[in-house]
């Protein structure tokens, strides 16, 4: 095992999108239990350094594997289709139209009920995109298609964060 091993190898998992969250969590705890600096508290600075490097690496991989979107983006990258969100902003027209409609709905929504309706819509669209993404990664692998779905989902999650802030603002 090396520090620069890929995330899946580090966690002893196959390189695929489908993943059992409980199993991932258990693997993470097991890895931290053997690598966390606190385990080497009595053994001096050099031991702490080695442990710190491993512990950081394990947390980094765990964070990336845990979130479906970052896991998908990482798989795309491993398969030669990096997301490059900054230089790759061209999105399908109908997707952009839907985004604009959502933004408009968010601007106009000023009740819990209206925001909840919008949230349900967005959530449905999101799970639909995730289903397509799973197909493009695991069933009929097509890294380029998967990368496109990932970019779309990045827009959707951004929107959901804004929506969440609005809901909080209404409650505070």
């Amino acid at each position, binding site marked *: 095992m090396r520090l620069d091993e890929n995330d899946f190898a580090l966690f002893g998992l196959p390189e695929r999108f489908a993943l059992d969250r409980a199993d991932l969590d258990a693997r993470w705890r*097991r890895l*931290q239990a*053997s690598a966390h600096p606190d385990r*080497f508290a009595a053994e*001096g600075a050099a031991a702490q350094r*080695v442990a710190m490097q*491993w*512990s950081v690496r394990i947390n980094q991989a765990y964070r990336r594997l845990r979130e479906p979107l970052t896991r998908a983006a990482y798989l795309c990258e491993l398969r030669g289709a990096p997301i490059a969100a900054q230089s790759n902003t061209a999105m399908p027209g109908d997707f952009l139209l839907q985004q604009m409609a959502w933004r408009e709905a968010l601007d106009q929504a000023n009740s819990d009920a209206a925001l909840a309706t919008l949230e349900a819509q967005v959530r449905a669209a999101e799970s639909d995109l995730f289903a397509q993404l799973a197909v493009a990664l695991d069933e009929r692998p097509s890294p380029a298609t998967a990368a496109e779905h990932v970019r779309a989902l990045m827009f959707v999650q951004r929107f959901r964060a804004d929506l969440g802030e609005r809901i*909080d603002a209404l409650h505070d």
Partner: protein
Amino acid sequence: MALLQISEPGQSPDPHTRRIAVGIDLGTTHSLVAAVRHGVAECLPDARGRAILPSAVRYLDGGRRAIGADALAAQADDPLNTVVSVKRLMGRALADVAGHAKLPYRFVDKPGMVAIDTRDGVKTPVEVSAEILAALRQRAEDSFDSEELFGAVITVPAYFDDAQRQATKDAAKLAGLNVLRLINEPTAAAVAYGLDNASEGLYAVFDLGGGTFDISLLRLTQGVFEVVATGGDSALGGDDFDAALAEWALAQAGRTATTAHERRAVLVAARAAKEGLTNATTQTLTCVLGDGPLSVPVTRAQFEALAKPLIDKCLAAVRRVLRDAKISREDVQGVVLVGGSTRTPAVRVAVGEWFGRPPLTNLNPDEVVAVGAAIQANQLAGNAADGEILLLDVIPLSLGIETMGGLVERIVERNSTIPTAKAQDFTTYQDGQTAMALHVVQGERELVADCRSLARFELRGIPPMVAGAVRIRVTFEVDADGLLNVAAKELNSGVEATITVKPSYGLVDEDIARMLREGFAKADDDAVARSLREARVDADRMLLATRSALAADADLLSQAERAELEVLLADTESVARSDDHHAIDAAVKALAAGTEAFAAARMNRGIRQALAGRSVDEI
């Protein structure tokens, strides 16, 4: 070098290498120290049997000071020189301290952190806190009849930012304490609570102290305490309940409190009335102001109406944390109440209703944080039987840097498990730009102006290139204390700059050395003797650790490597019997260096074993 496991499971290490380590709860209202003695974590009382030390410091004539109950008793008589609730000032500028105009001090607004002018001179919150910590250190040393306190775990509110954490660490250093770790108060409470109740599952810790509010979600799984998310308000607590009640009472009576004496007197009276309302339904708030006595009856219902906006503020933070963690309130298996302010019945009721289950209160809410810290301290000192507990904590606030237009680019997101590191690439704005200013900030807002500024540093000597061609990789590394290091490197040329984030008002090591010389903490007469004992203990531990590592994994070494290691072991062993602590330190260092590759190989094996051949439900 990293050697796995010193002793057999369940077996405690050699008693000769046992170290005394304490947990300290440095609270807004009161502070405690606890330690594991005879296998049990307990708070250490003072000579008169009191576990609680009020967090109050009074500066007297001639450089003397009173700490604790004596200081607290004088706060209304001598408000200018009696500092209470100093925790609210830690790592804060005057403008950051809500309601400072109502506090009875002569503030000195120094750049970065506020200070207080007393009859003994200007005191920073770090110095005041150090007085409290030094008193607790003394108590611990008296309890163990020992001058060799190995170190302390000190608790901080989970919501403390980098500046507040650094200030706490500085105060500990000033008090002559070796800080093993800063841990979050709710995490400490969860350790004490979880170990006591053998709990498993998802718990919320609702911690409302004198001056801070924290809400943390923790998952407990067989000795692993994983913080899932944390949030709160570092300036919301019981003091605010007192202030609201005091203001109300003055308004009821049509009176004003103008002098420092009067303000303190009415706050003290409000606190007494509030505490009385925990068990009674009516109280009378009484004190003496300059223009005569003040006496205002208050019912519990009236107080609860005043407390409601503050409790609602707490619950709003709870809702945000659950949303952050994508957890619904039904998933929470238990709610633990911590902090003296959770004694207020209205708080208990509101929390119980919100979560739909009665909160758990079976441990003393005043002591539970210190007890949890003591358990962790014992572990970090290497005294605990192997693998008892593991804390996986998070960073409470996002960390980022300033980009063009005063915007924040977040690099480490809040609620990331620590230790953590993350890198991001940036580029230059102008053609031929040879330097870049980096401004490190902490907070959740989009604009730099709304976040807390932590540090500024520059990367110079970038080779001139067209704008956008330069690639600067900025790496943030957060250690297990939640403290930050930032490094920047230009990838084409390899030019580098690094900074340990130390807020501008943080004490530099020379300051601490000077303050120690000025007799702040206890003078160490036999520093050499102490160094020698410490060096020997270190040597013993290294020998023991290396031998048990060899016993377990010698097959990872070639014969030549093994022989080299044996030479280092023999050297260390013979030097350890000498009286030269420098020579012992050098031998220990050589042994550590010589085992580094072995340590890496053992870590590797440990990781493989962690993944292989054990079923999920074992963990």
